[in-house]
Structure formats: structure tokens, C-alpha cells
């Protein structure tokens, strides 16, 4: 999992670099600093379990096991990307791997995740549905409507809130009086827990317990992971709204450094860890280069695939 953390961290590093260089369209949102949540939760998911995420979803998709190159190619807008370049950073979908989608709409995927859980329940499958979202999403009505439905129908859906204390440039205090997202679960008697999202072992265990409960049909579950955005809201955000002290403090909380220290204390030898990091570095580097070399979509195909049937696709204007 140390390796998985690095894959995400380095992947996001390349996104940052190439976005700044103008090679990546749009305005990607990095998950740098929040990797432990993605890795700790997805460690318990099978391919059949479905995952939904938000605008800050690169890490979740990689942690679920999607291909580095195809994911990066999508963020570059290439034909070899997960969505053939149609989706982009905020709309990653990898159906064959159970990644049913990121969304650019805050709280936009919560109800869809509940719907996927409903489908599993209806078909009598034991798969679960997981959705990642930010603390800002709790201001949206869809969050509360979905909690009510999920509790009422006992849906096997895991709501994972990455509470990083900010929504864009505005801190949590200005968004709500509610400090802990987990407190929204109480009225519905939804199982919930607030944990340190920067500590991988903690996330791993909490997610395991939550998912066991879901597989027993005792869902839903709301897992609040306290974490920190090490980068800006999106690539290019100068973060004037955050003090130097705050940013240094955040860096000190780096989940990767932390796991490294823990592993070393457990007797793992540092050189081995560094070589794991190095391996990740090479993998990501190579995937990124392959993605950058991949062909761009053919403009002639721009109107294809709005509908399945060509007759419908022929709609003019």
C-alpha cells in the first residue's frame, strides 16, 4: 500500500506539472495529501464493487486498480484514455473495473452510488457501492436526501467524506456550523465514524469494519476521514487564503511520510521502502510518457456515441 500511495502522489505530480505547462486541458483537482483515504478504502474493494467519486477523484480511480496509462491518457484527452478523451479529469469512468464515475457536480454522485447499491440489493448480489465526496458536499441537499433514502432502504453504500476543511477557497467554518460530517448520520441511525484520514492503518481498519457491515446487509455507513489538501483547490490556485504556517503544518502531516515512519518503526528497512518508491516513480513515469505519446481523438468522431442507435445520433443541430 506504500507503493499505492506513491503511485497516486507521483501521478498527481505529473498532472500538476503538465497542467501548469498547459499540456492538460481544463482545471484538474489534485488529491495530493489525501492518498491514504483512497488506498485504505479501496484495499477492501473487488472489481465487482462499484465506486463513484467527485471532482477530486484521480486517487480513488487509481486505488481501485484502474490502469495508470489509460487514466492519465484520459486526463490528457487522448483516444486511448478511459473515456476516449470525452470525459476528462472530472469525468473518469472505468466500467470494467467498477469505476462508474467521477462528477464535476458537488454531491452529484451520491444518489447514483445509492442507486448502484439498490441495484446490487435488488439483484441479491453482495457487491457494495462506495462514493467519495468532500466536506463541502454536505451543504448540498442531495447529500441529505440520499442519506435518508439509503437508511430507509438499508442500501449497501459506503459514504466516504474526505473532510479537508475547505471548499474551494472557503474554510469549513464559513460553510457550516457542523464540524463533523459524521454527525449528520445520527438522525438516520446510520453507522458512522470520524477518523484520521492521513493515517493509513486507521483508514484501512475503519474501512474494513464498515465494508464488513455493508456486506452483512447492515448498511449504509458514513465514514468521515479528516485529511488535508496539500495542493491548491485546482492546479493554478495560489492559495493566498492559507497561511504559510498552515501549509507547513499540512506538509508535516503527509500520509506517506507518516506510513514510512511507522513501517520503519516496525522494522522495515528504509532502503526497501525507497526502492518501492523508486519502482512507483518509474511505473508512473513510463505510463505518463506512453500516455503523452498516445493518439488524439479524431475530430470526425465528435458526434458519435450520444445515443446507441445511429438513427438517434443523426439528430441535427
Amino acid at each position: 500500500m506504500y507503493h499505492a500511495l506513491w503511485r497516486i502522489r507521483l501521478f498527481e505530480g505529473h498532472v500538476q506539472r503538465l497542467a501548469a505547462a498547459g499540456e492538460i486541458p481544463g482545471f484538474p483537482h489534485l488529491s495530493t495529501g489525501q492518498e491514504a483515504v483512497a488506498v485504505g478504502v479501496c484495499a477492501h474493494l473487488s472489481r465487482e464493487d462499484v465506486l463513484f467519486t467527485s471532482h477530486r477523484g484521480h486517487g480513488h480511480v487509481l486505488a481501485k486498480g484502474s490502469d495508470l496509462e489509460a487514466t492519465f491518457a484520459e486526463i490528457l484527452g487522448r483516444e486511448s484514455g478511459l473515456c476516449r478523451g470525452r470525459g476528462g479529469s472530472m469525468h473518469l469512468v472505468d466500467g470494467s473495473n467498477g469505476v462508474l464515475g467521477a462528477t464535476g457536480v458537488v454531491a452529484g454522485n451520491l444518489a447514483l452510488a445509492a442507486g448502484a447499491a439498490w441495484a446490487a440489493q435488488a439483484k441479491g448480489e453482495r457487491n457494495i457501492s462506495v462514493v467519495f465526496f468532500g466536506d463541502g458536499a454536505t451543504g448540498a441537499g442531495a447529500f441529505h436526501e440520499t442519506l435518508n433514502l439509503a437508511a430507509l432502504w438499508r442500501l449497501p453504500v459506503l459514504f466516504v467524506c474526505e473532510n479537508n476543511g475547505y471548499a474551494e477557497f472557503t474554510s469549513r467554518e464559513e460553510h457550516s456550523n457542523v464540524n463533523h460530517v459524521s454527525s449528520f448520520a445520527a438522525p438516520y441511525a446510520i453507522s458512522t465514524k470520524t477518523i484520521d484520514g492521513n493515517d493509513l492503518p486507521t483508514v484501512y481498519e475503519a474501512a474494513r469494519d464498515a465494508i464488513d457491515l455493508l456486506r452483512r446487509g447492515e448498511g449504509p455507513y458514513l465514514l468521515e476521514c479528516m485529511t488535508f489538501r496539500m495542493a491548491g483547490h485546482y492546479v493554478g490556485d495560489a492559495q493566498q487564503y492559507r497561511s504559510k504556517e498552515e501549509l507547513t503544518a499540512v506538509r508535516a502531516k503527509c500520509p506517506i511520510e507518516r506510513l514510512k515512519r511507522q513501517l520503519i518503526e516496525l522494522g522495515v528497512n528504509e532502503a526497501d521502502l525507497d526502492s518501492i518508491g523508486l519502482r512507483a516513480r518509474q511505473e508512473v513515469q513510463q505510463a505518463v510518457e506512453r500516455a503523452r505519446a498516445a493518439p488524439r481523438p479524431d475530430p470526425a468522431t465528435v458526434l458519435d456515441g450520444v445515443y446507441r442507435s445511429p438513427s438517434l445520433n443523426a439528430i441535427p443541430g
Partner: protein
Amino acid sequence: MEHTFIEILRRALDEELARDGSVYLLGEDVAAGGAFGVTRGLAQKHGDQRVRNTPISEAAITGLATGAALCGLKPVLEIMFIDFATLSMDCLVNQTAKYRYMSGGQLAVPLVVRTQAGAAGGAAAQHSQSLEAWFIHVPGLVVVAPSSPAEAYGLLKSSIRLGEPVLFIEHKRLYTMKEALADAELPPIGKARVVRPGGDVTLIAYSAMVKDALHAAEQLATGGISVEVIDLRTLLPLDMATIAASVARTHRVLIAHEAVRNGGVGAEIAARIGTELFDELDAPVTRVGCPFAPIPFAPELEHALLPGSGAIVRGVHELLGLESPE
């Protein structure tokens, strides 16, 4: 034997539930029969897992149905009034409609959203709207608006089997309309039909307005004016071929819908006819639609505002350069 629009919708849903185990109904009060009784008895027959009540959460149930559709169910969601589809717009427009395209073809959303629209009997400003025009502007959606019970039966089944997100609009004024069920095969989505052949004027309508159109055509026939009435059936996609064939014979067109005229579906149809059939037209395309105001409560006001067969007759006379009787 004749059935009401409501009975026939119920029968179509009943048969699809029986035919395909992946069809599920959900919505507010649907297990209790629904606000208009369309789903009465279906929960008892197919079980409360197949026909499920939801809380009053239009946004979430639209998302729920969309997510379930991504995972192999074929949900049929009821939004009680199209006026409340305003609460579903984010999901329908930003997610449901775009999923197939945004995912590069990996995923589809086989979802039917049944909703009920139109003005009648003092339902007033927030329970009477006709908002279909918004949806024909959204790539990825299909919009169906049946004009009679028999039409609704076939079109609802075709919609459920289409495999695309379909907005299925039922007009409250048609709910009590009775008709016998002709056992034809299911109508294809995207094909209009000529309901009444005629040679002088092409009269294009859909949903409840088809009734008014036929009534107007009757009246006009007594005056020796032969009107061809086209029922669009689907508003997205639009069947221009059927329209063109008719206009090539009549050279005169009137488009009628209950929705507000400004920015309505009729605008798109008129614009396309004006461009694609420019040389065929002997007179300006005329549109009949609701004048620019919310639907008022008082019966006199509601009646004064809503377009009907009278407005159509006047429009046709204008179109032919004749003095209108009244």
C-alpha cells in the same frame, strides 16, 4: 373494449414488469397507486421491491434511478408533476443524459422518467406547466409525449425497451380519455404519424393538443378546409421526414402546443421547416401556443390563456387568409 389512459398505462407497466425482471417502478406514492392511480395494484401484484415508494426527494430519486440503470436495472421513475422535474434537472441534464457520451460509450442509462404535465381544472401555476422544450435542448435525452391511450401503451413499452434515458410526458387532461387497444406491434421511437389526412394545411401537434387539432380539423372540414393532422409522438428526435412529406402537399403549416409559445418546441419545428422547406411554403408557418404568462388559478383566466381548438381554427383561417367566423 375501451380503457382509460390511466388503465392502459397501468397495463403497459404491468406487462413490462412481468416480461422483464430488470424493470422496477419507483416514485412518490407509486406503491400506494400513485397520485393519479396509474400504478394501483402493481405493488400488490409484483411485490413492494419491484414497485417502491420513495420519500419526497426528486433530486435523489432521479440520481438513484440513474445509478441503478448504470448497474443493469431498467427503472421507471415517476415524477408526479413535470413542475417538480425542476428538481431533477441537475441529475437528468448533467449526469443521466451525458453518461453514455462522457464515458466514451462504456455506460448507458436505460431509464424512463414518467411525468405528468399540462393545465386543467385550476391546478394553478405550479402544477400546470408544459416544460418539454427544455428537454429537446439536451443531447442524450429522448422525449416522448403520447396523445391517446392506445398511443401511450405502445410508446411507453417502446420507451422502456429503448435503452436510453426517456422523458415520457403524460398530459393530465388525457388521463380520463378512453380508447380501445389495437393489438399492433410497438411503435418505433422517433416516428410521427398522420392521424388525419388532408390537403390544404399541415397541422402539427402532440400530447393533448392532438385532440384539439382533430376537433379543429372537424370544424374546418365543415367549412371545406382539408387539414392533415400530424401527431409527433416523439419531440426528440423529431420526425422531419413525415412533416416534409405532408408540407410538400399542403404548403401551409400550423404548429400547436399547450406550452408557452416563446421558446417552445414549436419554435424548433417552425425554424426547421422555414429552413429545410423554405421553397415549399406558400404562407408563413403559424404557431399556436400559450401566451406569455404563468397559468392562473381562476377558471375564466385559465380558459382565456390556454390555447385550444378555437385558437387552432383561427390560426388556420389566418394561414389561408380567410376571415375567422368569430
